[in-house]
């Protein structure tokens, strides 16, 4: 009963207030966000340092020329041979194939969804695309093994575990990236541009393909580059359908199998030790440089688009 003595706890006491007493709340928030940001940067930095510390000596031992341009990968032989050129070209072919199949389909789907799609189709299509992005890659891999591999064997020849099969599968897997980003890039183009084109007498199709799509170019390009990033980094699905032979291939041998940089690491890292392990980490360095280049390209395209 009676009045609360002055100087005691406030009636609406809260834990948060108690914690922040004497603190500037803004300062506390700043610390929190800065820590989160640092954690992300630290992770990238650590991966980078780890890769280069462990990988560069191996490249030095093998010789950068032997490593990057050697066409024989025989890690268990005595003496071992560590040439990753077959894997570099394998990654390039399979990624290029994925772009070949995935990009046209992806961009046209994005244009359709942004400009031509009736409402009732859109409500089905949009979740379907999102679902495509959510399917685990091992499920794609299994689908590839039981559907695409026999399909390619029966309709194109070869044994089915081939560069073509992996490209088809990866083309499918990069679709959601390309569709989602391209669609939002197309939607971000001001309606006035479309309106202006139509006012000058362009048809809906003409205005879309020759005014809106070129204006969304930088966003569409960004989607392609991100798709390439996904294709280069994909491992699980590719190693289930690509055949994984570490053999040098020429472009016309796309019905034969190939091994990518990522498959090479994942197939052998578990049991490798000594020089073999170091060579695999060095393969990781090469992959890392690949991804850095792709990201740099992405940044360049974005900058050009902003100007």
């Amino acid at each position, binding site marked *: 009963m009676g009045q609360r003595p002055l100087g005691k706890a406030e009636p609406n006491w809260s834990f948060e207030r108690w914690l922040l007493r004497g603190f500037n709340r803004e300062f506390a928030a700043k610390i929190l966000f800065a820590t989160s940001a640092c954690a992300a940067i630290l992770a990238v930095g650590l991966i980078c340092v780890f890769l280069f510390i462990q990988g560069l000596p191996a490249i030095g031992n093998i010789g950068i020329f032997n490593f990057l341009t050697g066409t024989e990968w*025989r*890690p*268990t*032989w*005595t003496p071992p041979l560590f040439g990753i050129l077959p894997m570099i070209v394998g990654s390039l072919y399979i990624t290029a194939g994925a772009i*070949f199949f995935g990009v*046209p389909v992806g961009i046209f789907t994005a244009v359709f969804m942004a400009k031509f799609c009736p409402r009732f189709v859109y409500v089905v299509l949009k979740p379907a695309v999102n679902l495509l992005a959510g399917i685990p890659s091992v499920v794609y891999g*299994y689908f590839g*093994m*039981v559907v695409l*591999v*026999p399909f390619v*064997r029966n309709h*194109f*020849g*070869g*044994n*089915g*575990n081939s560069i073509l099969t992996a490209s088809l599968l990866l083309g499918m897997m990069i679709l959601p990236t390309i569709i989602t980003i391209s669609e939002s890039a197309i939607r971000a183009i001001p309606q006035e541009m479309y309106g202006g084109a139509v006012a000058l007498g362009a048809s809906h199709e003409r205005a879309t*393909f*020759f005014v809106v*799509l*070129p204006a969304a*170019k930088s966003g569409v390009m960004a989607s392609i580059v991100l798709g390439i990033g996904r294709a280069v980094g994909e491992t699980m699905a590719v*190693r*289930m359908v690509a*055949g*994984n*032979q*570490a*053999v040098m291939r020429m472009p*016309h*041998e*796309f*019905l*034969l*199998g190939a*091994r990518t940089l990522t498959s090479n690491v994942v*197939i*052998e890292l*578990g*049991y*490798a*030790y000594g020089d073999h392990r170091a060579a695999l980490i060095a393969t990781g360095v090469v992959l890392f440089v690949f991804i850095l280049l792709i990201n740099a390209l992405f940044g360049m395209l974005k900058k050009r688009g902003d100007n």
Partner: protein
Amino acid sequence: MLKKMIKAALALTLTAAMVLPLAGCGGSGDAITVITREEASGTRGAFVEIVDITANGNDNIYREAVIAPGTSVMMTNVAGNPYAIGYASTGVALNDDRVRVLRINGVFPSVENMLNGTYAIQRPFIIGYNTNQGLSALAQDFVDFILSEQGQAVVAGRGYVPFVPFGAPQYAPSGLTGSIVVNGSSSVYSLMHHLRSAFEDLNPGVTIDIHGAGTGHGISAARDGLADIAMSSRDFRESELEFITPISIAIDGIAVIVHPDNNIGNLTLAQVRDIFLGEVTTWDSVR
């Protein structure tokens, strides 16, 4: 810009359209698709050694062979390709009706034929533990169970040849609790899975984690202290015996498998060798 892109795409499509039929006429429908396991695989190691697919002591399996990482990928690959030939543990292959098991030199890989030694391609299933760390009490108990009459009965019941066919000691549950980690050969995995079920039924407080990451993986894990027990489907190499102690638990054959539609029934060991070396490339030449 857009026009250029369209032109480029058209050019690419046309090139592809011209190259596709050219590439199509290369392979004959009778070509053998050789499927092998990855180099870490114990099954591959044992197969290469027994069939002698080597050059100067090095593994020399056909370079164009499709590499199937894991027993299950091997089975799915052979089951899906009428021209395929592969190999897998008999315990797995004989229980999977999606593939057909071949006779080798006229001998079928049955338990009797492995016991009397007439089936050529057989190897031991081995488990191993880190020599410096030794076995934990629970892991020791599990090993005792595997080598007991009950454990060896599980081995025989799954179509493998028991390592101790007669006179194995009786196992009495010890009442220990806790968990152990087992890692290694994907061929031993399915047998280990059944041994675990039987052991856990007898010892309710026990959890056994089994990973079938491959023989090489398992040995590394035991070396690094990440697994109590490593499973191997080949003999340990000299370099591995420096840190690992082997215990044989069963004998297993390696079955040479083909698609059920393939009408071949028998291959000689020499033919198997030629196929996996890439010296014979069509089914016609071995029928």
